[in-house]
């Protein structure tokens, strides 16, 4: 019988207000093997840990149960405390009486009863805990950043500056991401390309950064410190070493029909293209769907005009395999599809556009060379209506339930820029709320109203009706005047909700990183670990974690980089000792466990065993504890019950079941 100590935390009033902690202590002392039990307001505090330390020495404890918050919060704290005081850290169990008890129950008697049962289960388990020793694994001192937008670029630069190698994988032909599509940035109105391009150049020129554009992550295996990643380098059909980026091929290419993705499909590009002038690398790709040569075998004009012979129609997709210690997801966002919003006539009229499309129209490199024009007839709009919250804050299945966060500010920016450049154009913004938390944000919005005369109307638009004369009839409401508004407009701009890049689900699955109902990646803790994924070694940067503007994205990118550096700076990582182990006497070498192991951690060896005095050679399963991640799939598959999971053994779990059902 082990000597067990039980420590019950009040967590201030978080636990003590609904759980009678004294009663839990009293009941604990009645449990078998419990030689000491006490309660304390904050067990995790320095003083609380001293109490544990003293009790370990005084009562010669061989096992500890802490009744407190979730083990996800403080299991590590109490294990370290035990270790410092000479007790194996794996002889500590947590009974979660806060998240799973005091916070969800109101009735004191009921909550106390449950807390006692949870305590009993933990005591029953800790009796059977084995003193485990964590192993060690080496760290590959190199990081992978998935996504080459501002988030990915900043993370990569920060990691590289600390002296570690970084690879950026970007699926588009150039890094730059959404920020490269923006014209100006709020609240300073500086030109987006002017501040982004130097960062792109810095990343490209950095000796520690390798950029794989036109590439996608194909497969991820391994674990923190030791990821193995397959990267598909899509066929570019242009030799990157030879190409000088002169651009002649793009001029001469006769296939000019494909929609220009960079300009949000508002105009077309050639089949061989770089997305934009400042592209990095400045090497075009051939769009295989549109290329005449690749589809019909005839043409070859780009090859003919290329003076350095960089065109190579025979290129194939190539898969490279790399090793990384840490992976940062920086996959960014896109705007939602507006097919379900028939009332805004986005699919009917060319003059109803999204804000991101307006960015391209306002940009000198955009489809209208920076002139504000209606896309239907090229005329200058005199009356522009902005509609806020299109698809944001929706609880129906058409939109997204969250606030997209950036729309209020970029709309103020657009309105201000238009009023500044085209003073005779009227701008009306229909808003529900104007949300401007941020440094100099509200001042910026007020400038739009007070200095630039932008007409802000509180109320949503119900319908946009295209008229035969080409104008747009906007049916809105002014809730403050309690009046319906019918307004004739030349252009309507929709502040379209943003959503995580659709590819993120695929990537999250590969990384086994969890994802929420809106496809945003989940953080390890919403407040205290906002840039880490719950999956060790995977970090989050930028909008893939939640809506953010540029400064926030850059800040988070830096934070993610610091976490990566902290990981790569270690030479060895402690591995989880809760791995599977086969009982040599029971194993019959049937191979079923190896079939279900997702890590290939199980192999078979012929070993001599001593079965009740009879020595014989048997085929026995051997688990490689460096590869085993401790899922336990093999333990259930094993027909003879030979395979067991350390830390979550059959006997331990059954002891918990028994204690709960007692």
């Amino acid at each position, binding site marked *: 019988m082990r000597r067990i100590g039980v420590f019950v935390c009040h967590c201030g009033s978080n636990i003590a207000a609904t759980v009678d902690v004294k009663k839990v202590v009293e009941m604990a002392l009645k449990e078998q093997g419990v030689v000491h039990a006490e309660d304390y307001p904050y067990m995790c505090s320095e003083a609380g840990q001293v109490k544990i330390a003293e009790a370990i020495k005084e009562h010669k404890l061989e096992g500890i149960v802490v009744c407190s918050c979730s083990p996800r919060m403080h299991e590590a704290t109490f294990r370290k405390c035990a270790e410092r005081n000479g007790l194996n850290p794996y002889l500590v169990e947590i009974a979660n009486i806060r998240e799973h008890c005091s916070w969800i129950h109101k009735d004191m008697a009921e909550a106390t009863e449950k807390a006692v049962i949870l305590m009993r289960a933990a005591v029953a388990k800790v009796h059977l805990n084995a003193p485990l020793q964590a192993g060690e694994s080496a760290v590959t001192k190199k990081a992978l950043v998935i996504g080459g937008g501002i988030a990915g670029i900043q993370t990569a630069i920060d990691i590289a500056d600390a002296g570690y190698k970084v690879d950026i994988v970007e699926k588009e032909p150039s890094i730059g991401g959404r920020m490269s599509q923006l014209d100006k940035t709020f609240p300073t109105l500086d030109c987006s390309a002017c501040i982004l391009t130097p960062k792109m150049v810095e990343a490209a020129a950095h000796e520690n950064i390798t950029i794989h554009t036109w590439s996608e992550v194909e497969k991820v295996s391994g674990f923190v410190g030791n990821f193995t990643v397959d990267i598909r380098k899509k066929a570019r059909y242009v030799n990157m070493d030879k190409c000088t980026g002169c651009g002649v091929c793009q001029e001469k290419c006769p296939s000019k029909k494909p929609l220009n993705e960079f300009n949000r499909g508002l105009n077309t590009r050639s089949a061989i293209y770089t997305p934009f002038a400042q592209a990095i690398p400045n090497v075009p790709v051939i769009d295989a769907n549109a290329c005449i040569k690749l589809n019909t075998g005839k043409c070859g004009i780009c090859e003919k005009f290329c003076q350095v012979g960089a065109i190579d129609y025979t290129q194939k997709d190539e898969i490279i395999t790399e090793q990384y210690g840490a992976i940062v997801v920086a996959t960014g966002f896109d705007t939602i599809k507006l097919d379900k919003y028939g*009332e805004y006539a986005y699919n009917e009229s060319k003059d109803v556009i999204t804000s991101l499309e307006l960015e391209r129209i306002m940009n000198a490199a955009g489809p209208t060379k920076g002139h504000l024009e209606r896309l239907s007839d090229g005329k200058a709009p005199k009356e522009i209506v902005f509609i806020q919250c299109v698809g944001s*804050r929706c609880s129906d299945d058409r939109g997204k339930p969250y606030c997209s966060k950036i729309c209020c500010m970029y709309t103020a920016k657009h309105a201000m820029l238009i009023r500044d450049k085209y003073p005779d154009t009227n701008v009306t913004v229909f808003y529900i709320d104007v949300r401007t938390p941020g440094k100099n944000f509200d001042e910026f919005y007020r400038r739009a109203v007070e200095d630039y005369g932008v007409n802000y109307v509180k109320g949503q638009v119900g319908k946009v009706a295209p008229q035969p004369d080409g104008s747009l009839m906007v049916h809105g409401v002014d809730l403050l005047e*309690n009046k319906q508004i019918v307004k004739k407009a030349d252009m309507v701009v929709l502040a379209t909700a943003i959503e995580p890049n659709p590819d993120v689900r695929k990537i999250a699955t590969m990384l086994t990183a969890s994802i929420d109902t809106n496809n945003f990646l989940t953080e390890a803790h919403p407040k205290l670990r906002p840039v880490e994924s719950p999956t060790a070694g995977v970090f989050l940067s930028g909008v893939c974690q939640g809506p953010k503007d540029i400064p926030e994205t850059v800040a988070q990118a830096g934070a993610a980089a610091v976490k990566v550096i902290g990981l790569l700076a270690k030479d060895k990582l402690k591995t989880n000792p809760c791995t599977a182990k086969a009982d040599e006497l029971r194993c019959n070498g049937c191979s079923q466990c190896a079939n279900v192991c997702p890590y290939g951690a199980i192999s078979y060896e012929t070993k001599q065993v001593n079965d009740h005095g009879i020595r014989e050679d048997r085929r026995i399963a051997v688990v490689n504890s460096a590869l085993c991640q401790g899922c336990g799939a093999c333990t259930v598959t094993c027909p003879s019950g030979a395979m067991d999971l350390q830390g979550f053994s059959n006997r331990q779990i059954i002891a918990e079941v028994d204690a709960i059902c007692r």
Partner: protein
Amino acid sequence: MNKVEEIKLISGVNPLKCMKCGKCSASCPSFNEMDIKPHQFVTYVINDDVEALAQSKSAWKCLSCFACIERCPRDVKPGKLIDAARQILIRQRDQEGLSPDEIPALLDEEIPQQLLMSAFRKYRR
């Protein structure tokens, strides 16, 4: 059951979901005829002022075109709220309601189909 609970039950709507965007009022073809506007319905229900809502002109000016229900981003559906208020009224008055047999005699050939449909929605109970 009080009136507010009754309205919630009949309409199946949770008025607390409203974010006061006004898209219902922007969409309403009878807006100018109404004394209480569609975006205000929710506030009347939340403030337990169902009586005023039921007595308002709006209850009968609503065309039951369901544009507000279709477009409401928060699933609040003011059209259903006013419809529920109307039902409570009709149930109170009981005999004064139309029975289906009476409708053919009241029909005018000039009346558009949609109006018949919405009349059916409004008066069928």
